[in-house]
C-alpha cells in the first residue's frame, strides 16, 4: 500500500545516492517539483532515465546530481538546446556525464518490457544507424520468420517518479490526458513515488484515464502545481513562456546557479 508522505519524506525514504532514477512524463505531468527535491536533498551519482530529458533534467545535471543519462531526445521542446546537458557532455561541467542513447521507440519498448518483467523489448529499428554503437542494443532473430530485429534491454530503475492529477486517501492514483510512459515507469521500477495535484475522497472515472492501484505505488505526496512549468490536464496549462525563458537562464553557468539557488535551493517545502 502507498504511504501518504510529504515530498521531502518520500524522496528521503526512497531515493539514494547512486540509484537509477526515472522521472517520466511526456511533455504533460512532468514531475518538476520532485526533481527539485532531489536537488535540495543533494542526491549524487544518479543514473537518470527519461525519454525526453527537458528542463527538470537540465537542472539535475547542471546541479551535479547525475553521472549518467539514459534518454532518447534531450532538448527544450520548440525552443532549442538544453544548455546544462550540452555543457556536461561537451565540457564535463559540473561533472562528466555518461550517455546511453536510444530512439523513442526503443525507450518505449524498454519501458514496456520492464513493466512486463521481460529482459528486453523488441523493435524493428536501429538498423543501419550509428546508434547501436552507443547504446544497449543487440540484434535478435525472430524464431518464427527469421527476421532480424533490435532487442533493447528493459528499463528496471531503482526508483520511478511520476506526477498525476489525483490520489484518494488510500493512495490509489488516477491520471488522464497525455499518458506518456508513466504507467510503465511505475510498474517497471523497484520503488515508486507519485506526486499528485490533490487528494480526493473518491476517484471519479475519467475518459481514457490510467489508474494505478495503491499497492503498486510506494509513496504518494500531495504537491499542487508539482508539474509546473509542465502542465496538469484539467488543472493548469503548460507555461510555454517559461520554457522560452529557460534558454537564457540556463545558457550561462552563473545565471543558472543563481536561479537554482533562488528558486530551488532556498525554497522551503512542507
Amino acid at each position, binding site marked *: 500500500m502507498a504511504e501518504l508522505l510529504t515530498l521531502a519524506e518520500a524522496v528521503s525514504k526512497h531515493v539514494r545516492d547512486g540509484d537509477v532514477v526515472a522521472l517520466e512524463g511526456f511533455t504533460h505531468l512532468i514531475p518538476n517539483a520532485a526533481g527539485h527535491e532531489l536537488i535540495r536533498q543533494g542526491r549524487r551519482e544518479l543514473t537518470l532515465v527519461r525519454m525526453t530529458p527537458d528542463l527538470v533534467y537540465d537542472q539535475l545535471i547542471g546541479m551535479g546530481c547525475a553521472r549518467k543519462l539514459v534518454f*532518447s531526445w534531450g532538448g527544450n521542446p520548440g525552443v532549442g*538546446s538544453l544548455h546544462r546537458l550540452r555543457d556536461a557532455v561537451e565540457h564535463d561541467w559540473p561533472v562528466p556525464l555518461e550517455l546511453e542513447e536510444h530512439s523513442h521507440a526503443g525507450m518505449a519498448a524498454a519501458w514496456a518490457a520492464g513493466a512486463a518483467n521481460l529482459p528486453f523489448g523488441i523493435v524493428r529499428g536501429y538498423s543501419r544507424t550509428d546508434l547501436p554503437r552507443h547504446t544497449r542494443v543487440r540484434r535478435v532473430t525472430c524464431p518464427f520468420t527469421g527476421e532480424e530485429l533490435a532487442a533493447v534491454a528493459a528499463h528496471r530503475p531503482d526508483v520511478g517518479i511520476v506526477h498525476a492529477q489525483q490520489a484518494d486517501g488510500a493512495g490509489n492514483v488516477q491520471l488522464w490526458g497525455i499518458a506518456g510512459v508513466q504507467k510503465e515507469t511505475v510498474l517497471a521500477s523497484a520503488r515508486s513515488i507519485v506526486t499528485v495535484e490533490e487528494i480526493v475522497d473518491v476517484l471519479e472515472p475519467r475518459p481514457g484515464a490510467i489508474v494505478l492501484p495503491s499497492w503498486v505505488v510506494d509513496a504518494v505526496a500531495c504537491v499542487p502545481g508539482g508539474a509546473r512549468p509542465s502542465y496538469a490536464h484539467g488543472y493548469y496549462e503548460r507555461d510555454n513562456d517559461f520554457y522560452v525563458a529557460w534558454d537564457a537562464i540556463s545558457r550561462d553557468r552563473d545565471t543558472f546557479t543563481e536561479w537554482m539557488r533562488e528558486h530551488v535551493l532556498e525554497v522551503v517545502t512542507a
Partner: protein
Amino acid sequence: MTAYTADEMMAVAAARRLQDGMVCFVGIGLPSTAANLARRVHAPGCVLVYESGTIGAKPHRLPLSIGDGELAETADAVVSVPEMFGYWLQGGRIDVGFLGAAQIDRFGNLNSTVIGDYDSPKVRLPGGGGAPEIATGVRDVFVLLRQAPRAFVERLDFLTSVGDRVRVVVTDLGVLEPRDGELTLTFVHPSASVEQAREATGWTLRVADDVQVSDPPTTRELLALRALEAA
C-alpha cells in the same frame, strides 16, 4: 502578389505535398506549421498524429511542444507512448512522416544526434527522438531543412535515420527528390536560383533536366499561414 519570406515558401511547398485523408506524423516547428496549413487550405481531412500519443489532433493554434494540452483536447484518440510507437507507427498506420535534421547527405540519410565526434562533440544535438523509427515506419518521409553547406554534407557526422523512404526534401531554396537513388533538385523557389542551390549544397548537386520553378504562395495560402501563426 503579396511579399513572402523564404520560411513561408518552405511551409507552403511542404503543405502542398500533403493530400486530403493522408495520415501524417508531425514534429514540432515547420512540419507542424505545414501540416496544419494543409488542413486549412486543401486537405481538411489530413489526420495529424503527434508522437505524444495524440491521434487526429485539430489544434486551433500552432503548439510549442508535441504534447501541448490542446492537442489532447482536440484529438480523436489519445494513446500511451509505447502504443503510439508500437501499434500505430510500427503497425504501419502512418502514411507520411515529417523529419528535420542538422545534416542530410545525398541519399537522404539524416543526422540529428551530434556535430563532430560522438565522444567529444563540437555540438551535442537533442538526438534522434522519434526520427529513427519514423524514417523506417512510415510509407513516405518528407524532410524540411534550410539549405546550407553545413547542413547538406558530403558525409554525415552521425547517421541517426536512414534515407530509404525520403521522397522529398523541401528547403528554403527549392525541392529535392530522389532520382536514381540520389537527391536531385527538381524545383527552385521563385526567389532562388539553381546556382544558389548548388552553392548551398556540400556535394555536387544533381539538377533535374526538367527542373521547374515552384508556384509562389497564393494569397489564400499566405493568409491561412499567417492566421495560423498569429493565433
